[in-house]
């Protein structure tokens, strides 16, 4: 895998996650108790033997850059000798007011791609919850002599297929036979993922041959528009997979982690999921703690009751507080007698005594970072 560069792309607008992306980009949204979304795709790359990962930034990337640091948690040295971790900043000459597709991001970093040693690129979105082994994909891509090979997924009810609006037909050998537009969304049971591999030469060609007008994206304007002249293949993705593009899917995939078999699949096979270590002591349970069916990160202090919930690091749950079916981001204070149900509580939120926050399963209560209630 040494000649494959992993590229973590920004392929959707941040605002699809509402409050969760108010002060950070989607790659650095908290997920699963002590991770950020980018950890999953980045760890997948590292566990697959990729030694050079490039991460695009666009807007609100301060927390992302801070999270990635020198890359040492993934054993990738930032700016190391033609390998390791590269952070690709956007070209500040362009306007940044709105996200206008990823082509300009690729284009303004063409020098970087031309200079790099790897011959192939594996491009993936940053909003995937997964632990994928890309070696089979790359092997298949080589054997099939494809121009581009996509990962695809079969019969996955949680995948939002409307994104593609294409009718997908895959031949027995994995070749994509048809990718016709379909106004009403897709009725195919197979959905392409925004994870694909191609040669670096082809990437450079696609990007440079697109009319660069500051808008457009690689997938639709670079690949799909040219799909007649490209040999496109598809390879099935294995293992747990979540594509997070709405608060409802964020909640759904989070709560799935309370299922032991999903947790096992996601966090240990084929490799571990790495993240930035916050150097915290274990979580401490006091005499009055009552916690069941929940996932808790380090550094919490629990005196109250927690049920079927996910608590990120350094949250304090006081005596008599009750948290149910909820996700609590880092560093919250839940005071005595507070009641929280079907809610996503942002980072650093303080919930005062006896306050009640009750959402419904189909209408979650989402509290923005640092709110004091």
């Amino acid at each position, binding site marked *: 895998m040494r000649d494959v560069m992993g590229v973590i792309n920004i392929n959707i607008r941040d605002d699809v996650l509402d409050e969760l992306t108010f002060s950070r980009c989607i790659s650095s949204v908290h997920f699963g108790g002590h991770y950020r979304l980018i950890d999953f795709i980045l760890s997948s790359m590292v566990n697959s033997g990729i030694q050079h990962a490039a991460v695009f930034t666009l807007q609100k990337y301060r927390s992302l850059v801070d999270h990635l640091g020198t890359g040492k*948690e993934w054993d990738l040295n930032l700016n190391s000798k033609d390998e390791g971790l590269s952070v690709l900043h956007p070209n500040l000459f362009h306007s940044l007011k709105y996200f206008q597709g990823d082509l300009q991001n690729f284009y303004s970093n063409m020098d970087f791609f031309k200079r790099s040693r790897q011959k192939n690129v594996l491009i993936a979105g940053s909003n995937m919850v997964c632990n994928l082994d890309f070696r089979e994909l790359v092997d298949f891509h080589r054997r099939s002599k494809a121009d581009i090979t996509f990962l695809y997924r079969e019969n996955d009810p949680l995948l939002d297929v409307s994104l593609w609006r294409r009718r997908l037909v895959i031949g027995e050998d994995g070749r994509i036979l048809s990718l016709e537009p379909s106004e009403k969304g897709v009725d195919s049971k197979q959905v392409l993922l925004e994870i694909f591999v191609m040669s670096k030469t082809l990437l450079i060609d696609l990007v440079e041959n697109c009319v660069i007008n500051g808008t457009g994206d690689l997938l639709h304007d670079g690949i799909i528009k040219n799909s007649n002249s490209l040999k496109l293949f598809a390879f099935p993705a294995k293992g747990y997979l979540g594509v997070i593009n709405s608060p409802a899917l964020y909640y759904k995939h989070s709560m799935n982690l309370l299922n032991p078999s999903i947790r096992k699949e996601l966090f240990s096979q084929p490799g571990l999921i790495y993240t930035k270590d916050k150097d915290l002591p274990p*979580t*401490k349970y006091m005499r*009055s703690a009552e916690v069941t*069916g929940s*996932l*808790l990160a380090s550094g919490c202090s629990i005196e109250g009751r927690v049920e079927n919930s*996910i608590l990120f690091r350094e949250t304090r749950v006081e005596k008599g507080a009750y948290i149910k079916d909820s996700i609590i981001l880092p560093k919250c204070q839940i005071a005595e007698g507070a009641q929280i149900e079907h809610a996503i509580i942002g980072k650093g939120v303080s919930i005062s005594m006896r306050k009640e926050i009750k959402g419904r399963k189909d209408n979650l209560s989402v509290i923005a970072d640092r709110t004091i209630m």
Partner: protein
Amino acid sequence: MHSGKECVAMLLAGGEGKRLGILTRDKAKPALPFGGKYRIIDFTLSNCTNSGIDTVGVLTQYEPLILNSHLGNGSPWDLDRRKGGISLLPPFVRKKGGKWFKGTADAVYQNMNFLEQYNPSYVLIISGDHIYKMDYSMLLEYHQSKDADLTIAVIEVPWEEASRFGILDKNETGRITEFQEKPDIPKNNLASMGVYIFNFDMMKQFLFKDQNNIKSSNDFGKDVLPLMLKSNCRMFAYPFHGYWKDVGTTESLWQANIDLLENNPNLDLYEQHWPIYTVSTNQPPHYLGPEAKVEQSMISDGCTVFGEINHSILFPGVTVGHKTIVKDSIIMSNVIIGSGVKVEKAIIAENSSVGNNSRICRLDNVTEDIIVIREYSIIPHDSIINSTYTFKEIILRTGGKLK
């Protein structure tokens, strides 16, 4: 800066910890797990980091393998430096062979080349056996303000334990007037913590003198400090008032861990300004099952608990089955405890597994001993264990009983 480092630390990490029995059979004492996720040496290393000391020579000797792999490139402690950082200093083999260090002073003397390379103004000597949080930069400031040749950090110990320590006396300026290593009849209870700051030049001079004395045991406490005092060196005592523990025995290791479960323990691991760093386990958050019950306990990343944990500490990656009760116990990393098990007042060391329906607890409630299960033990289903389990790996028939 300029050509040298201001202060370089020499961390003595070769201790065997004999009285810790099977827990230190395969690792040096500084590598012992402590506090739910740490190893003992993490405390002194984190003290260095938090005190701004970025060059640490770690003197290893007894069973250094686990220590070596724990320290790695030093990055958890921010000690992966180009200049300085962590350097492992095992005993050195010359063409004619090599041998262990004679005493603590010999260990430092044998690594004079390492020190010369940084040419520090001051050398801090610390021991990887002790658990405490101390700002060495304050100690250094005190040392400088006293214009001392040597400053020793001191703590008041219970009178009955005083004869285990180096005991000293000082005048009202803090200058040390007397020093006795492990006196039979201690004159007071002011004990050396084994934390010294030397002026490097002075240290060299006295280590050379000490090496030339063939009768010397080449130990700081026994030989070098008394010699310096006799030579009228400016030696000062720096009073320390916080938590400081040398866990010498299995009982004191157990107690020091269990003490952390108090509401306001003497050793506070949660202080934001003085974090304790250790190697990341890269495990997901811990999970408590639908019927779990956890009280007065500390639980680490990667644990999965279906049973009941009471007044206990779980290190990372521990699994506890349904209807199992763990009480007053310390369960180290990656231990797997089956269903219907009872564990009471025990230490189960790393990577062991306990089969379903086993009982690990004293039959009588009279003795105060801790049951210790050695690392990598495999305890079959339905076992009954009520004494220290010393086999490294054993497979008994189901229902076996160990006495």
